[in-house]
């Protein structure tokens, strides 16, 4: 098979800021990203949702680019921008015509150096975030299912189990002092990586990085709370009411082995065997053959983009005429078959071709019109978690080397009831009916 070799160079400035450049002149467009190694997992206690609220604040003004100017300067340069908060990182990114590269870097440096926001900005973005939570979670059928439902059932460490979007009381409690403390602790150059992808020459990119970011002082190394989970030895279950939807739903999550181990690679292919679209064992059995489920999807979400405990999750919406017990029994049947019989050589070969093909697509995947978001995300996470952006060219090998026996062994070792958590979403309407 044709190998992909992503050209890249990386360095670090004296203040600890890492810089990664992946040049590609296909289009006169450059994608710029700044990733900070802090996500909602380690936000302060009593401040659930704060990492995300803070992300919003980073668009509210910096020393030389007051509110509205940051957005205006990027849009009016012909570019798009956004940011997002994840478990272990928060990112800010722009795609612009390459003629605007220096301007975008200047804006990122300005807000890394000196955030400048006031109470009015905080009130405004708190309101915006509440509407975001309503439109995505509170006013949507199956909103937040299962990404907000499963963690409190599955995990015991607050870092992994709290409400990542934030309880409204916690959002209301956040004040400007929290904003600046968080900024000072985590938004330091030695806790970040700057990325440039596309139409940029590495030597020019590095020179600009030095010119604009070198004088930002390094901070103390940020403290990181331990996100480790105690060993799980019993199945955990929970229930959440579904306010709008009419179908019963469930999500089943299994603990994933430590990243970048042989077991992790085997688990990833196991995930592909179970959740790989309509050919996946679970979809085939529960949707196509037995026709119990209406929707079924899942997997290890953002497999390269987390750095702590996580799960492989299956999300199922099933027909009302099947009970949760029947649905779960059908699911368990698929898992048991894998444990007892494993997969064939032919199936393993298929899984590997598909995995490699999906990986190429991941590199090119966009995000709201933002080209090469996927490649940027991988380079950033491999830099911040592993110190090795080059992993983007070599990480595939571990997955392509997985053996048949290893898949079956992983199924037996990790897909155990005492290693899983299940959340049921029960429609309020059907419960009312049952009660009547």
């Amino acid at each position: 098979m044709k190998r992909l070799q992503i050209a890249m160079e990386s360095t670090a400035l004296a203040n600890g800021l890492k810089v990664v450049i992946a040049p590609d002149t296909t289009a006169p467009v450059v994608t710029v990203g700044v990733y900070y190694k802090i996500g909602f997992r380690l936000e302060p206690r009593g401040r659930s949702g704060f990492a995300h609220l803070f992300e919003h604040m980073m668009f509210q003004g910096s020393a030389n680019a007051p509110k509205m100017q940051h957005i205006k300067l990027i849009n009016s340069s012909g570019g798009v921008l956004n940011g997002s908060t994840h478990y272990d990182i928060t990112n800010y990114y722009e795609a612009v015509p390459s003629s605007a590269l220096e301007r975008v870097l200047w804006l990122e440096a300005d807000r890394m150096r000196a955030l400048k926001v006031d109470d009015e900005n905080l009130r405004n973005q708190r309101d915006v975030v509440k509407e975001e939570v309503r439109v995505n979670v509170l006013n949507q059928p199956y909103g937040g299912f299962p990404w907000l439902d499963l963690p409190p059932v599955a995990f015991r460490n607050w870092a992994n189990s709290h409400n990542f979007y934030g309880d409204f009381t916690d959002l209301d409690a956040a004040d400007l002092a929290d904003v600046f403390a968080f900024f000072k602790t985590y938004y330091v150059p030695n806790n970040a990586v700057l990325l440039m992808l596309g139409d940029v020459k590495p030597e020019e990119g590095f020179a600009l990085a030095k010119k604009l970011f070198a004088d930002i002082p390094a901070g103390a190394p940020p403290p990181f709370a331990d996100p480790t989970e105690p060993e799980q030895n019993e199945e955990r279950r929970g229930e959440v009411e579904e306010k709008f939807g009419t179908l019963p739903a469930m999500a089943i999550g299994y603990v994933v082995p430590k990243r970048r181990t042989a077991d992790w690679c085997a688990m990833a292919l196991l995930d592909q065997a179970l959740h790989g679209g309509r050919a996946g064992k679970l979809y085939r059995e529960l949707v196509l053959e037995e026709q119990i489920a209406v929707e079924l999807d899942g997997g290890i979400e953002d497999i390269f983009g987390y750095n702590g405990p996580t799960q492989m999750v299956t999300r199922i919406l099933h027909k009302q005429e099947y009970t949760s017990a029947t649905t779960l029994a059908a699911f368990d049947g698929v898992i048991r078959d894998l444990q007892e019989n494993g997969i064939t050589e032919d199936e393993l070969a298929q899984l590997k071709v598909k995995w490699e093909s999906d990986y190429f697509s991941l590199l090119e995947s966009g995000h709201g019109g933002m080209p090469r978001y996927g490649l940027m995300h991988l380079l950033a996470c491999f830099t911040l978690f592993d110190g090795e952006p080059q992993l983007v060219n070599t990480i595939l090998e571990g997955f392509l080397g997985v053996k048949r026996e290893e898949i079956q062994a992983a199924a037996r070792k990790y897909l155990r009831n005492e290693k899983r958590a299940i959340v049921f979403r029960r429609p309020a309407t059907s419960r009312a009916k049952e009660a009547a």
Partner: protein
Amino acid sequence: MATRAVAENTAVPALAPERQVAWPKRTKARLSNGLEVILVESHTIPKFHGDLYFRSGNAAAIERGPGLAEMTASVVRTGTAKRASRQIEEDLRRIGADLASSAGADTSAISFAGLSEFAEPLLGMVDELAREASFPESEFERERRQKLEEVKLSRTEPGFLASESLRKVLFGAHPYAQVSPSEDQVAAYKREELIGVYRDFYTPENGLLLLVGDFQPDAMLKSIEKVFGAWRGKKPQASVYPAPANPRGRRVYLVHLPGAVQTQILAGCHAITRKNPDWVKLGLTNSLYGGAFNSRLVMNIREDKGYTYSPRSGVNPLRQHGFFSVSAAVRNDVVAASLTEIFYEMDKLRSVPVPEAELADAQNYLSGVFSMGLATQNGLLGQIAVVALNELAEDYLETYRQKVRALTPADLLETSRKYLDSANMQMVVVGDRTQIESQAALFGDLEVFDAHGKRLD
């Protein structure tokens, strides 16, 4: 003032000279069976992306059954004369491919992506699905049952309910009025009807094959001739529908969703198709109004007032008629306040010329974003498809930026007056009537419906 002035900042680095945007060569061909083919090289990853479009969709099937083209597309991938459903899915995985079959108002499509080294087997699969789908009875029954559940589920989604109502209001008796079938309509689908739609729509004369990716066009064209050459089929007769009546006056349609903790606002009016010479003008007007993060509406009701997370406006170009719309999911107690600002920004664009500097910013935005598609195979495929499906000029991609740059404040004033039809906006609000009815009623004659479209008193 909603949009606060920002002082000129001399520290901001100037833009470097713009690099030339070069659109790649399109290799075009028409096979002897009538299939139109467009190929574009892009070697960013060792894959290729493609679409096989048919120029007939749900609108063309409306008299046989609403949503029938979509149902047909769902069943197309579940069996052929040669392969059963399970075999199809495994064979796709074996070559690392993804495939989807779907239909919208104006087209049906088989979309696919795969590794370049397995291009021929993937094209073979696409050809087989387009020519030899067998519509197995059991697969049809399952997909229909599946669709029934989907239709029920969509009636609980505020966004779906809003767009369904707006389309109904704007398009009346025209096929574009119906975005989704009812449960009864799905229950009434017959396998023979699907086969009829398939036979009529899925023909080479009605088809358009687009491929973008890591291949040599000459060699790829040979493969295409080999794979698709023997296929035969005529273009279906196009149905003509009278233009929908353009609703006059402001009216409000409230869809009552008990217990909703937010209100979905969606307002719209008739506009234009992509073929209309005013398209670029309206596109620029829209990006100033609510089509960009930096637009007036977003700055006003999000960044200034905090009423909503994601306000947006857009021009929705269906093939025969287009419409303009603006949406925002807002806090229940600011429904009236949000509508007031939505109209304020619209009326302002209709009455005060856009300042030159703001116009230049918007022109930069639109022409910059237009070139982003160049960077990836999928992005390029999308832009090639827009040009081909709408039969736009050959040099549309090459001249678009120039056309955007040529517009003046006077053009935008004229365009706003013509298409941001403030006096005749049709408003849909989806939410809990007990919290929003009196607010919504301030903006026009109001009617209340339930989630199934039944009128409530």
